[in-house]
């Protein structure tokens, strides 16, 4: 407590002058002014565009460029108007006018003295943003899950078309992209924002205002996407391959604006997470003492930051084809459909790891706590995550083995795809080693970990088939692929996220999660999940293509089973959601460290005060100092060992 404190106490430092009430415009702005701003701006834009500008030029190929341009501008106006209405531009405008934010302004923006209202505002406190992300993810899972039920209803009713093909095709695409967005944010959003700064002993994120910006951009991105269902649909899978997307109705533009906006949100969040983790760890928290969840979040943020722009540009060019009549992807005019596929999968594959990696790292964090053991081979986990990040850059073509764009590419990309299984194998060993000879504390998060590893085994063995070009020649585009990636994204990713969320639930909400009801919900969903997707593997093997709404009689039985299973997943998830909501509202009040965990976030009080720690912690060891010395080792061998590297018997 030396220099910094002295400077703080120095009375002569001039503070910026307070203009009006703390918060300025932000004191008035909230989600409702945002919605009003968005709708009004969109409406005005539509009116001006429709009445005053000569639209209606016909594209040479498919669609009305004029109408598309009008809809595109309207959606963009919605995003800008919403962000203006909620106060996203208040800070920059004040700086431009030379009005610095005062300390009171900053505290107001962090949500001081606003009660519940702060969750509906442009609040900078990382804990508020974390809760906002969590609720947003739950809402998106609600949408996505509902769409999934509709899809399964169509596929279960084998004797008729329940929906018209345009709506059905829009449904599968919307289900896909909503779930992908939800999965990307569900761990890195709530926990990367709420828990991560606590875990590294920081007072907030590095850029609190960017944190609010990233969340509200995500919020603004969702309505254009979901609205596509009433604007003629997007008619394309979540991959939105071109030129099918160029043919699609104006709903497609909702998808494109959503992705372009969401990519900004992800990029901003990525910068924020990376900067915070790299620069704001507590004194003494060297890299080797940094909890593995932080490393996993860092890895995911790096991949998101580097690869999301690919997805954004893919959609920007696609929108430009629709809106100003370019032909990046229109072969008749010299474009290339393969350009789109490459740009898309350059993100499309790393995105799977953006989803899996934080969930996996979170699981490792809680295994340690529930097994009362140190993490097995921290170094191997680091190498594993680093390997995944590195190799993830060069595997995208395995989604394009059958496109024919480069028949010889099968060889190098089969190599890279098999190689990435080695760092993933490291992560598996870390988990197995952590389990080794541990008596597990039998709580729901730990039970879900077992379920997740089981799903990873099935996802792993089916992934081994798919990584192989010759086998993929059969499997590609079939229901087998759909079942496989649901095992990875839902079985490992979503279930893992559920484990991680209920582990940190007491810190985030101040309440204990009701495991009795949660357990019923989870195991219902888990068992139904196995029924649904094991059966879907069978349909795929029999040759059922994906994204169809009618099919051969041969696939009937497996689809009936899948549909019944899917309904039970829905029931299980609703029970789990019920447990979550009731626990949140009136669960048992949580102590500050209910799990007896050693990481920093559990060492501060619950509910977490505004600036997290009364005094910033100083770290002197890694957080994995659990366990007794291995009884199988002789005493003299124990003494040989370095304190930090207690090597156990095998």
């Amino acid at each position, binding site marked *: 407590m030396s220099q910094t404190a002295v400077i703080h106490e120095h009375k002569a430092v001039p503070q910026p002058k307070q203009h009006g009430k703390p918060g300025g415009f932000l004191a008035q702005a909230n989600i409702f002014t945002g919605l009003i701003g968005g709708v009004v701006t969109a409406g005005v834009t539509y009116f001006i565009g429709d009445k005053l500008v000569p639209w209606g030029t016909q594209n040479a190929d498919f669609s009305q460029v004029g109408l598309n341009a009008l809809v595109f501008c309207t959606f963009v106006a919605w995003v800008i108007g919403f962000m203006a209405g909620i106060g996203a531009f208040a800070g920059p405008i004040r700086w431009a006018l030379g009005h610095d934010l005062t300390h009171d302004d900053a505290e107001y923006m962090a949500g001081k003295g606003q009660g519940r209202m702060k969750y509906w505002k442009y609040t900078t406190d990382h804990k508020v943003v974390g809760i906002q992300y969590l609720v947003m993810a739950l809402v998106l899972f609600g949408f996505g899950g509902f769409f999934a039920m509709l899809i399964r209803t169509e596929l279960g009713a084998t004797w008729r078309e329940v929906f018209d093909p345009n709506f059905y095709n829009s449904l599968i695409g919307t289900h896909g992209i909503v779930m992908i967005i939800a999965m990307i944010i569900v761990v890195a959003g709530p926990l990367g924002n709420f828990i991560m700064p606590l875990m590294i002993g920081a007072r907030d994120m590095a850029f609190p205002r960017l944190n609010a910006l990233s969340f509200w951009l995500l919020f603004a991105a969702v309505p254009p996407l979901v609205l596509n269902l009433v604007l003629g649909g997007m008619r394309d899978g979540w991959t939105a*391959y071109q030129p099918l997307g160029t043919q699609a109705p104006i709903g497609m533009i909702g998808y494109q604006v959503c992705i372009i906006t969401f990519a900004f949100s992800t990029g901003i969040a990525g910068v924020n997470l990376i900067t915070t983790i790299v620069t704001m760890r507590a004194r003494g928290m060297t890299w080797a003492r940094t909890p593995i969840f932080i490393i996993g979040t860092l890895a995911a943020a790096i991949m998101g930051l580097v690869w999301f722009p690919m997805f954004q540009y893919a959609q920007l060019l696609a929108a430009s084809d629709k809106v100003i009549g370019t032909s990046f992807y229109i*072969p008749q005019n010299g474009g290339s*459909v393969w350009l789109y596929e490459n740009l898309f999968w350059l993100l499309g594959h790393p995105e799977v790891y953006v989803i899996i990696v934080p969930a996996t790292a979170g699981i490792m964090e809680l295994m340690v706590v529930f097994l009362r053991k140190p993490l097995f081979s921290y170094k191997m986990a680091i190498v594993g995550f680093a390997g995944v990040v590195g190799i993830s850059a060069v595997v995208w073509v395995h989604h394009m083995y059958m496109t024919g764009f480069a028949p010889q590419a099968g060889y190098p990309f089969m*190599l890279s795809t098999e190689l990435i299984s080695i760092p993933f194998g490291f992560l598996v060993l870390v988990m197995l080693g952590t389990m080794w000879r541990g008596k597990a*504390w039998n709580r729901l998060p730990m039970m879900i970990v077992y379920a997740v590893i089981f799903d990873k085994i099935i996802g*792993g063995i089916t992934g081994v088939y798919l990584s192989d*070009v010759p086998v993929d020649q059969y499997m590609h585009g079939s229901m087998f692929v759909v079942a496989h990636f649901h095992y990875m994204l839902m079985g490992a990713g979503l279930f893992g996220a559920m484990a991680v969320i209920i582990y940190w639930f007491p810190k985030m909400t101040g309440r204990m999660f009701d495991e009795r009801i949660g357990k019923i919900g989870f195991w219902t969903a888990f068992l139904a999940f196995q029924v649904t997707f094991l059966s879907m593997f069978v349909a795929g093997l029999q040759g059922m293509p994906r994204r169809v709404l009618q099919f051969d009689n041969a696939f009937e039985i497996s689809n009936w089973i899948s549909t019944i299973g899917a309904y039970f997943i829905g029931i299980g998830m609703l029970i789990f959601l019920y447990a979550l909501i009731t626990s949140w509202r009136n669960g048992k009040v949580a102590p500050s460290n209910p799990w007896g965990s050693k990481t920093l976030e559990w060492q501060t009080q619950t509910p977490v005060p505004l600036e997290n720690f009364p005094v910033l912690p100083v770290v002197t060891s890694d957080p994995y100092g659990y366990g*007794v010395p*291995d009884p199988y080792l002789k005493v003299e061998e124990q003494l040989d060992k370095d304190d930090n590297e207690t090597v156990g018997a095998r």
Partner: protein
Amino acid sequence: MSIETPVDQPEPPTNRPDPTHRMKEWFSRDYVRKIIAIFIVLTIIIIPIAWLVIHFLELSGGPASSIMEELETTIFVFTLVSAPLMAITAAVLVYSLFGWGSIKSEEPPMQENPAIRTNAVAVIGWTVATSLLAAFLVIWGMVELATITADSYGSTPASQQPNATKPIDVNVTGQQWVWTFEYPDQERIQSDVLVVPINTPIYFNVTSKDVIHSFWVVEMGVKIDANPGAVTNTGFTANKLGTFNIRCAELCGLHHAYMETNVQVVTQDQFDSWVREQGGKRTV
């Protein structure tokens, strides 16, 4: 120079058990033996999955080409080699759940478990095992890819094929939502059903009139995208008479689900008469 050990240097520890003894001790532990037993049982359970997978693959009447046969072999071999790794993972999982026991309590348990930070043998052994597995999968996959590329004539035009049987070219065009097959050497006859003679190499030039489709001849194990503005190639030699499925495997718009047809594998005589019926003649 003397190489004598200085007298004051401590003796190297002699009570350290030698590696074989340590290994014996390890394998004699109760939990190690049980995990090995579970591992063996699980491996034996996992391997038959290969047959199950192949059984489902063959339900619709395949395999009807050497490509599909090789693909089934690959599935079998891959299941076989990855089964041990899956089984050891599952074995530790099962033993962790039921073997080492669990603690039921509301409060954080006081009892702590062995502080195993790392273990050189496990780390090195696991790395070597997974790397060998990955290497095997890559090498097998590449050899297999070369084989099926040769089987489907890869990028070599039919006219340059050294085979005894003269291959037949077929131009495949996908359009929303039908497949059209054109036989350029049979006076350009066109058909919406693919008819091919058995044991004759068929060579496809695949393209699309509108959006991306994917030409999937299910029981032949052949698939290639039909792209607008480009021609892609594949091929097969059918070795089984009968009617098999052709489906579109890439979402191509409203009626993607209905974009399917058949391939009829017939004898050479039947093929010749079919060509004549269609108004073409067999040009040998």
